[in-house]
């Protein structure tokens, strides 16, 4: 994955992932009210917002995990709305859920090998274990016996194997010690350098500002505003206001 992968089919000016007018429902409850997002290739974009504004739902709707949805989602010029759930990953999008989704009945190794490789250019198991030596030490113990930080690393690592070009990452730092948060920041920077496109949901915008190129601020199931990382300082008041921090 050192060379720029072959995914650059999209036109230079069109975003790699484009979401328009996305509405989504959980049963009767209307969670997203027309979300618009664009993510360019190689970019890291962060969704900010309070709990319950629809950040996670946005990721799950893009992935296809929330099926009750309207609007358009296109990825490298391809319509994702009509695909069955298992085709989203095959199109090239990987997902790391907020609860990490490490399987208790699978070993670390099996957890790592679980997501099928969907494209060339993913990391090899060797590269991954070089990057995460802790995981290699515990490769045959059950996945959920790992610490929270290790589970988060594993959840990201297994997606890196698959060769997806976009990573949807939901609150990777939640509940983790500062040292681990630091390491996850390092990891995201490494991925960025390798050309990975990342859509990050994060409460902690200090952490996000380290890796993000752009921010979307969400409220009530909609995008309130968007701005590049350079405007972060000047928008502090707005952020404090909306995020309530």
């Amino acid at each position: 994955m050192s060379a720029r992968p072959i995914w650059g089919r999209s036109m230079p000016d069109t975003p790699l992932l484009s979401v328009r007018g996305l509405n989504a429902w959980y049963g009767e409850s209307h969670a997203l009210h027309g979300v618009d997002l664009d993510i360019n290739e190689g970019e890291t974009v962060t969704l900010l917002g309070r709990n319950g504004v629809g950040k996670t739902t946005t990721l799950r709707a893009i992935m296809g995990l929330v099926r009750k949805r309207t609007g358009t989602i296109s990825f490298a010029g391809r319509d994702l709305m009509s695909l069955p759930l298992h085709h989203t990953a095959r199109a090239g999008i990987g997902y790391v859920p907020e609860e990490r989704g490490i399987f208790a009945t699978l070993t670390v190794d099996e957890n790592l090998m679980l997501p099928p490789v969907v494209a060339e250019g993913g990391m090899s198991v060797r590269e991954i274990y070089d990057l995460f030596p802790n995981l290699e030490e515990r490769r045959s113990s059950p996945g959920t016996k790992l610490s929270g930080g290790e589970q988060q690393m594993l959840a990201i690592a297994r997606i890196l194997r698959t060769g997806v070009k976009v990573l949807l990452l939901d609150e990777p730092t939640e509940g983790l010690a500062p040292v681990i948060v630091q390491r996850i920041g390092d990891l995201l920077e490494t991925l960025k350098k390798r050309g990975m496109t990342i859509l990050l949901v994060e409460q902690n915008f200090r952490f996000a500002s380290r890796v993000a190129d752009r921010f979307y601020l969400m409220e009530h199931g909609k995008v309130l505003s968007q701005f590049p990382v350079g405007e972060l300082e000047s928008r502090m008041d707005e952020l404090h206001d909306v995020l309530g921090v």
Partner: protein
Amino acid sequence: MIFGIPIQAFAGQLLIGLINGSFYAVLSLGLAIIFGLLRVINFAHGAQYMLGAFIGYLMLAHFGITYWPALILAPLVVGLFSVVVERFALSRLYDVDPLYGLLFTFGLALVIEGVFRYYYGVSGNPYPVPTLLAGGTNLGFMFLPIYRGWVVVASLVVCLGTWLLLEKTQFGSYLRAATEDPKLVQAFGVNVPLMLTLTYGLGAGLAGFAGVLAAPVYQVSPLMGQNLIIVVFAVVVVGGMGSILGAIVTGYMLGLAEGMTKVFYPEASNIVIFVIMAIVLLLRPAGLFGRDA
């Protein structure tokens, strides 16, 4: 003599218990696999077992297909039939209460058994022991019919094979992961709907295999799976469905317990498994190997 019982009689009943246990193990294994992934209690499991035996019997009677090919072909036919059932009917019930899956497969069992009963009556049809496994051998303390020994070996091999498939292969890790969180596994790009179909086919195929295996031991009759399935349900309650290995071990153990009861208190041999179930419910409601409460 053991406790005043001649050792031959004792060993003989133990062997019968072990053979019954072999069928309980293979059947409860299939039920547990299906339940783990589909959350459906497959009431048709007994009918699929009967179907396996009957297909083996009909293959021999009408096409001269002998035991060994039938041992592979009949489970395949049962599996394929069940794949069709899953695709067109069961798959529509995953989003509703699991009890509807139970009721649907109950209806399916009635139809399958009813059809065979209509065409073949209720009397049993003998199925010959394959020549390779005919006869018996004297073990010194008892006479062992070779076919009965084969039943135990074959069931152990199938249980072990299924366990290896689940624990040591990629398909197995997909299956275990999908048992925990099917949506996430599908979001990773695994075709989970297809896995559900294959898993139902696999579980039903195991029942069909048990049926062919049983054909030379018991007679082949449309009702052979009816009462068996209820006993297997009790086995599953005792073992708890959380563990594949648990289902297998519980199957053999309860078969042996039943055999022992036949020696010491024959009147209770029909109900001993239900009694054990009641005791387990008192002491360990989740079952011996159960993880779910």
